């Protein structure tokens, strides 16, 4: 049951979306680009509806690749087919005369998909994260809706999806949903096992649903791959989790991995098999069918980066360093991969450990019959997974191959769920990510919408008055030194880094209006934007790592109270100390 404040939140954020939708979409009226290639993402999506609706399945990925050929994974193609069908029903045969309402119809589809895929999962996760604060119901709903509003009016997502025109909210919503299910422990199932067989199957039904959802997200947009290391590490950790040290058998681990693997493969087969089934030529092997599609989805031939992206490669390719010219093209992908791996590794390790740890916690809780704390622990897991996903995706953004500016939405989505835990960081990151896309927005003539949305968000920040009070975490940690360090860090962030970056952002905006760049450096300002936002994102990477570490340590500290009861913790205790030392 959804209460009135939440309803109000949803409708307000829908209102904002429909307001933004009034503004021009990417490539409207051929504002940029040449006469031959019309439009941008909007036209691409529209064209895909045409392709999928009118052509046979085997031609979807091969039809006239030069004019907005389909280059998203199959689920997008199926989605386009469904939308094309809808459009056929409601708008009638797409014609030039109906272009106006057709444009409107496209906007409507984004809003519809937003409502179906993004809103509910945001609601579920926010409710779960919020449930720890046990206020009265009314206040609870109010706080909850304020938080949800903060998530839903994130300027970047609104502008990109409803202004620029893309369907990011679908894959983000699906991914968030998968995080939700993965971190749920199926208690009934577990209990049953505990009682009868004395062992726990950690990878239960919920994890399977989660991974199916994740695969769907992955099949909607390949970008979601940025989350996959986090998810993979966490689930793997969960597989290695054991009830107690006695039952840690390789067979069980293998079955669990196997179950998840089969799930993933089945989902993928469901998504991809139709293309093989309707293959053009009966002699075609699977490889022949799928390889061209995969090539279209992962265009490695396009180069290290495209345009001006605020990632490490782009910054390193600037004039004095110009790394792009010095490194041979063949070497670039592996190098990018290597750096990315290095950057995601800490997140993965932490998540793996967390996934493994969760179990001993569960036992403690079950023995002590503290169900509330068990749900809390699950929330920690959810939070950890969200932080981890944000971390891995920002690592990908900073270091991987062929990144687009819009990929910054990926770290933003899980991060914006943390609005109660790290409000300052979340708000700051929301604005920085929007700011980093300024030139993208300017090309689409969305400046008015940009300023309005950012202003609205700033209004929200000041009005909602969410301050940095992650009390629920700090209060549990015993070590005062640790507390001090944490507080110092937070103070440093909120008093030094954020004012500096805010003033920088405003200043650069003002400077761009008044100063015309010299002739030999026409893209001076885009470059400045790239440098500043890249630095900010690097900082964000550190901050994410820090937060994840915090949760990890917290769970370990939480253990210290119960360590007598669980013998397995001797090993982990050593790690606490070591990591503590690392910190200090």
């Amino acid at each position, binding site marked *: 049951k959804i209460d*009135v*404040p939440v*309803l*109000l939140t949803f*409708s*307000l954020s*829908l*209102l904002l979306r*429909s*307001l*933004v*939708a*009034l*503004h*021009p979409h990417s490539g409207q009226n051929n504002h940029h680009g040449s006469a031959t290639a019309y439009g941008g993402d909007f036209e691409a999506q529209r064209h895909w509806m045409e392709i999928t609706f009118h052509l046979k399945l085997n031609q979807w990925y091969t039809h006239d690749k030069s004019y907005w050929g389909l280059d998203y994974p199959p689920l997008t193609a199926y989605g386009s087919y469904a939308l094309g069908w809808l459009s056929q029903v*409601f708008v009638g045969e797409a014609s030039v005369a109906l272009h*106006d*309402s057709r*444009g*409107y*119809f496209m906007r*409507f589809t984004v*809003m519809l998909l937003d409502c179906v895929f993004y809103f509910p999962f945001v609601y579920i996760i926010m409710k779960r994260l919020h449930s720890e604060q046990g206020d009265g119901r009314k206040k609870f709903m109010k706080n909850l809706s304020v938080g949800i509003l903060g998530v839903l009016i994130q300027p970047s997502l609104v502008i990109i999806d409803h202004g620029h025109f893309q369907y990011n909210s679908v894959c983000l919503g699906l991914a968030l949903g998968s995080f939700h299910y993965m971190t749920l422990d199926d208690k009934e199932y577990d209990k049953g096992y505990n009682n009868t067989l004395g062992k726990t199957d950690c990878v239960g039904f919920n994890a399977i649903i989660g991974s199916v959802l994740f695969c769907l997200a992955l099949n909607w947009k390949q970008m979601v791959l940025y989350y996959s290391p986090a998810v993979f590490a966490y689930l793997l950790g969960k597989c290695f989790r054991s009830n107690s040290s006695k039952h840690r058998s390789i067979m069980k681990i293998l079955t669990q991995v196997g179950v998840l693997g089969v799930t993933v493969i089945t989902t993928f087969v469901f998504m991809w098999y139709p293309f093989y089934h309707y293959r053009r030529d009966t002699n075609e092997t699977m490889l022949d069918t799928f390889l061209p599609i995969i090539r279209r989805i992962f265009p490695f031939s396009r180069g290290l980066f495209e345009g001006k992206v605020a990632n490490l490669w782009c910054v390193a390719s600037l004039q004095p360093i110009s790394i792009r010219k010095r490194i041979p093209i063949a070497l670039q992908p592996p190098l990018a991969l290597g750096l990315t791996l290095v950057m995601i590794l800490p997140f993965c390790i932490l998540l793996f450990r967390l996934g493994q740890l969760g179990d001993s916690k569960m036992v403690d809780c079950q023995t002590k019959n503290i169900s509330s704390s068990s749900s809390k622990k699950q929330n920690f897991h959810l939070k950890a997974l969200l932080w981890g996903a944000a971390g891995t995706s920002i690592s990908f953004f900073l270091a991987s191959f062929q990144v687009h500016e819009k990929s910054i939405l990926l770290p933003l989505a899980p991060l914006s769920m943390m609005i109660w835990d790290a409000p300052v960081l979340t708000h700051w990151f929301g604005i920085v990510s929007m700011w980093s896309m300024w030139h993208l927005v300017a090309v689409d003539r969305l400046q*008015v*919408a940009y300023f*309005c949305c950012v*202003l*609205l968000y700033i*209004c929200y920040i*000041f*009005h909602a008055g969410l301050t940095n009070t992650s009390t629920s975490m700090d209060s549990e940690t015993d070590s005062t030194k640790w507390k001090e360090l944490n507080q110092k860090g937070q103070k440093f962030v909120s008093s030094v880094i954020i004012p500096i970056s805010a003033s920088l952002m405003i200043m650069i905006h003002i400077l761009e209006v008044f100063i015309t760049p010299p002739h030999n450096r026409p893209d001076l300002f885009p470059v400045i934007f790239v440098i500043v936002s890249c630095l900010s994102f690097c900082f964000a990477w550190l901050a994410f790592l820090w937060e994840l570490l915090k949760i990890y340590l917290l769970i370990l500290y939480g253990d210290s109270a119960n360590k007598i009861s669980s013998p397995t913790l001797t090993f982990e205790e050593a790690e606490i100390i070591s990591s503590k030392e690392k910190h200090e």
Partner: protein
Amino acid sequence: MFILVLSMIVKILLIPSYRSTDFDVHRNWLAITRHLPLSTWYFDDVGGTTVHTLDYPPSFAYFEYFLSNNLITEFLIQSEILNERCFQLLGDQDNDVGMDCVIFQRLTVVLVGDMVYLWGVLAMCQAFHSSCQNSISDHSLEKKKRMVESMWAAMILAVFNSGLILLDHVHFQYNGMLLGILLLSISFVLKSMMTLEEKSKTSLDDLVLASATRRTISTTMKRELIGSLLFVWLVTFKHLYMTLGPVYLFYMLGRVCQPTTRAVVQGGVGGGGQFSNWKNGLQFFLLLAISVLLTVILPFIPFLVSDPVNYKRQLMQILSRLFPFHQRGLCHNYWAGNVWALYMFVDKVCKKLLNATEYPTEDATLFKVTPFIAAIFLLFAMIPAMICSWMIARKPMNYSPHQHQHGFLYCIVYASMTSFMLSYHVHEKAIMTAIVPMIFLSVTDRTSARLFLRMSTLGHFGLLPLLYKPTELLLKILLHSCYLVLSITLLEKIHHTKSLSSSGICSILEEENIGSTLSCPLPVQSDLDTGPLLKTWDKIGLGIMASILLYTESLHLVIFGHDKMEFLPLLITSVFCAVGLIMCWFQCGLVMLHVTLKPTVASRYEPSSTVQESPHHT
């Protein structure tokens, strides 16, 4: 401040939305006032190529002149930010203008119109607020907080009024400005009532009294004068507001003829006060009459002077533009949801039933309503409002000022509802004149809140067909529903906290109040402070509304296709709105009578937004 920024954001985001022909109308007026001499303003129609001729009273023409001939506009044109074409006289065939012009005109609405509106809203809030502060002898924090809260709610409801946003910022008009002036004028009248109150409060010492009375009376008069002048000025902006005139007229008459202005205060002392009071009254009346007449005539003078030989022709031309009875029918293209819409509906049905062959004829089968008949109906329906305002003005001032204020506001609301219901060729936009003052009543007690919810929901629903393009479909529905949900939440919150906080003495007091109101013969007040804001009937109404919306926007197309039975959705919408609004109208009239005539309870009953002024507390 926060609200201001938010509303600005919403309005600026609306810039690229659909514009109605009213946009072209205003653009054309800008062009006329920029390029033509004064004498031809009301004659020009660009060689017969445009229908967008100037048909508002002179003050509005001056306003357009101001917009098209000020420094900023000149600067914008000089620096070529704004294209010259924006101000050229263009025929209807060829009146596409660039985005720059659109932005310019939209910004004038946002900046000029909304600033005036905001000013009016603030003035209203202040009038209510200070009256409450005066009447509370014990400034208990909680009460103050509650009051401030309700004022905030009124402000939010007023600023984000979805009907106004749709009309001004999508459809394009300057209603905000005009309503702002109306609110300012009302607020001055309300404040004048407050000084009456002050006077009766301060009446302790006879010596102090004499000077105090004189002073307060003069401030009262000044405020009343300003209020009525503002109103008259507003009429020269847009003559539709004329229908509120009787309320003002009778209120002022009542004030003038009030027999006991001082007698009540001075008690026995004021034996000789009668005469001086009468003299004062006459003076005041003369002053008022002269200044009002001057204000009315003044804007016309330049037009008459500009063409001294043929001033009669000039005047006739202006009047014919202002009152184009012969060109227009009983109802506007989109039937406003009023009595005549129902009448037309019945008429249509009769036609169908009686004789299908005579269908194409234009004449109604029932008797034809001429402007004259409509005016007579209107006058008759206006009578209660006149009586009420007269009585309010004459009421001795040991009543609380809220009583006066509420009564007067209800008179205004009722009068504008009446004019909406019965005037000739009403636009559905006219309902805003009733809804906006109603906002300020809605935060005071539950009955008003309920009435406001009904009125605003139905009234705004009637506005929706104005934006017929699919692009705005979702936008208008969302705006409407957001506003509905917002107002329900806010009003529930205000009235909820009230009932919660009423514990101890307050609750006893409220029980007393309820008991006393229950004893009243009128049923409308019986559910005071009880029950949810939305009753079963309202919910059913909402359900019907949603289904009508669904039908008009999608099902109709599916059933009939694009070009058959085009008028049917409009017809359903306006008939539905008409039925609902007529019910609101009656309810409004009843509440007005109730507030005015409440004989015994009045001294004790205080509309509950403001604070219970009780014998225990004072």
